[in-house]
């Protein structure tokens, strides 16, 4: 509870020194005992007893029968799944609090200048109200891999396709009757050569005629074109069958946009694109060259980023955490900012400091105590992160995203059935927050003495 202790300890709202107050009722110990009894009993049974039990249980093996000493604590580093959890929790503690505090600081400073800051703060703070489960579902939806489902990939693919051409016929390939053979890297090259005056035939298959993108018209046979090499690219298949293989039959679809290249000794000497009726014309230079369909015709469409795959899953979940908690940091820092002496900032400006220098040299140092409180609060919170990881990380990559609190549950209840290891993880979590506990107690005792 460092946050309110730390801030409440300031001169603005001191905790009253309890030690000097006297009861107005006189001393009647049994009344006090009655008022305290429910709380003491419940705290003892539900909070204090579990700590002791966990310490004892962590020294025993999986089913609690054999004493293993500190063996379970050693497993934190030797057990693969648990060590992944240790590493990921370290990443969380190192990255998430700093990221969230940074966002909160930027938002708090910038909103000072706008009139609708309250509306902005409401929007940013809103995620604090909802459960981590709801936030998890929200972000699972954001990170859906299919660009037609997840907004993150929809944006990524949209941006990507604006700058990079994508292929229209990812599944098409030359029919076996044609003499185009796979020539590595997804391209196809003819075994024979082109000759002027003889139209080249490029029959492709692999797409259903009713699923051709853009629904093009029927293909027409290319006319011989003087010195150049003409040809047709079409879908050599029609619904209901019929038609001769390798020949442009009535009712067979053109495949406009397919790129063809003429290649001599491995060098592209000419290239063209099939038109709306499937025909193309290469210049005279193509005479005697091999015909090649470059791989760009058949490249699989760009499907965006695998957000929840093994490599990005932890950063992606940290992103959703930042979405939830930036409002917390912002509101605390804004409260601190409201207490900053404006004259100091104005003095710096008068002295010629620009806004960045004022921020960096005056505002941030003045806010340092608040920033530390926010950072520590978030660190404690992040150590115990569970729900977001549990919900957002899909089964296949959940092991990669594992964190201590999740591993505790998995090890003890989720099939691991190793309550010894689970208890050890619980004790480690307690030890990690122990410094804050000590600071809280010290602060309390200092206030008493005042």
């Amino acid at each position, binding site marked *: 509870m*460092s946050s309110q202790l730390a801030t409440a300890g300031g001169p603005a709202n001191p905790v009253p020194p309890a030690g000097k*107050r*006297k009861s107005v009722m006189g001393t009647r110990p049994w009344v006090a005992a009655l008022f305290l009894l429910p709380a003491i009993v*419940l705290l003892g049974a539900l909070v204090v007893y579990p700590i002791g039990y966990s310490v004892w249980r962590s020294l025993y093996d999986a089913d609690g029968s054999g004493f293993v000493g500190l063996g379970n604590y050693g497993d934190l580093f030797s057990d693969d799944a648990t060590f992944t959890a240790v590493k990921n929790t370290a990443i969380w503690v190192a990255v998430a609090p700093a990221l969230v505090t940074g966002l909160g600081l930027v938002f708090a400073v910038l909103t000072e200048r706008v009139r609708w800051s309250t509306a902005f703060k409401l929007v940013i703070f809103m995620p604090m*109200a909802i459960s981590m489960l709801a936030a998890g579902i929200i972000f699972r939806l954001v990170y*859906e891999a299919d660009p037609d489902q997840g907004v993150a990939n929809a944006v990524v693919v949209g941006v990507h396709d604006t700058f990079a051409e994508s292929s229209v016929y990812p599944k098409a390939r030359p029919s076996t009757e044609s003499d185009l053979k796979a020539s590595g890297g997804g391209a196809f090259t003819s075994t024979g050569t082109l000759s002027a005056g003889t139209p080249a035939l490029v029959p492709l298959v692999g797409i259903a005629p009713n699923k051709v993108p853009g629904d093009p018209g029927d293909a027409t046979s290319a006319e011989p074109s003087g010195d150049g090499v003409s040809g047709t690219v079409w879908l050599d298949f029609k619904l209901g069958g019929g038609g001769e293989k390798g020949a442009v039959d009535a009712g067979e679809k053109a495949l406009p946009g397919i790129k063809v290249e003429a290649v001599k000794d491995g060098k592209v000497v000419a290239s063209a694109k099939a038109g709306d009726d499937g025909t193309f014309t290469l210049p005279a230079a193509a005479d005697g060259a091999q015909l090649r369909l470059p791989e760009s015709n058949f490249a699989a469409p760009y499907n965006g980023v695998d957000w929840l795959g093994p490599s990005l899953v932890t950063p992606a979940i940290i992103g959703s955490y930042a979405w939830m908690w930036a409002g917390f940091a912002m509101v605390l820092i804004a409260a601190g900012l409201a207490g900053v002496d404006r004259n100091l900032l104005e003095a710096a400006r008068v002295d010629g400091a620009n806004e960045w220098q004022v921020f960096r040299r005056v505002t941030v140092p003045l806010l340092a105590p608040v920033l530390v409180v926010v950072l520590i609060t978030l660190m404690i919170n992040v150590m115990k992160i569970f729900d977001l990881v549990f919900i957002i990380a899909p089964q296949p990559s959940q092991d990669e995203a594992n964190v201590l609190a999740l591993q505790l*549950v998995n090890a003890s209840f989720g099939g691991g059935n190793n309550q010894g290891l689970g208890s050890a993880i619980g004790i480690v979590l307690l030890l990690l927050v122990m410094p804050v506990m000590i600071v809280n107690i010290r602060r309390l005792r200092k206030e008493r003495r005042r």
Partner: protein
Amino acid sequence: MTTSSVPLKGPGEPGEPGSPAQPSAAVDAAGPPERSLASKLAGFFAGGAVRVFLVVVALLWVTPTVGLLASSFRDPTDIAASGWWEVFSKPSQLTTESYSTLLGKEEITDALWNTVLITVPATVLVVVIGAMAGYAFAWMDFKGRDWWFVAVVALLVVPIQIALIPLADLFGDLGIFGSVLGVVLFHVGFGLPFAIFLLRNFFAEIPRELLEAARLDGAGETRLFATVILPLGGPAIASLGIFQFLWVWNDMLVALIFSDSGSRPLTVALTEQTRQFSGNIETLAPGAFISMVIPLAVFFAFQRQFVSGVMAGAVK
């Protein structure tokens, strides 16, 4: 009387329109008159950039929630065929079908009812027991009072994870593992340290004359507690109540382990649908939204108490 344990009062708090902006506005108005035109222009454009940036950030922040909301109002075929953003170009896709399907499922309505059955007692018990103990710590004399209070403060940051295994064993022995009672007890145990701490600090600031006056009127401890302490402690009790209510309502971890198929709350019922995420959006989106409605309503209705409650209890 102030809520000493709540760091946020007045400035910086949503719900106090414009208060954080006022000091800087005042400074700007009284700014140095010798500012050059160039610096004024630079300031104007920088201000514009800040506004644009903040608008973009705000949009970025609401988009995920809007996506969930939009998805919850589309039918399964549309969800499978295209992204939720299509509802803006085709509003005819909007339908409440997912909600009626979801609320027609007994397992979901039961889970929603369980959420209430868990949340209400867990909140009331924490407030009542916490207030009694807080009053004792603030206004009664007994041996070792300060030491007991130090012990309570020490328990503030104990992670709930540490109690999962011990209490699962204990509740198993008592025969309440898997019941609503077990989940409630867990939340009461871990809600109390914060409740006692918050309320003791608040009660201690109640002017002693008020208590003495009531005492002279012949009020006993119980009447004093009920007629003076509780009414005057209203603001702190409201903050605590809201925080504890939301904490329990939003909890998934405790219920995941301590409830069974008959006592599980909405969060746990939804969790089981997340295994097959893409195929279950028509269940998950409205389900998540239903679980969000109460917290959001509380948020918008009680911004002040909400913010102070959440802020004070954040370390939990």
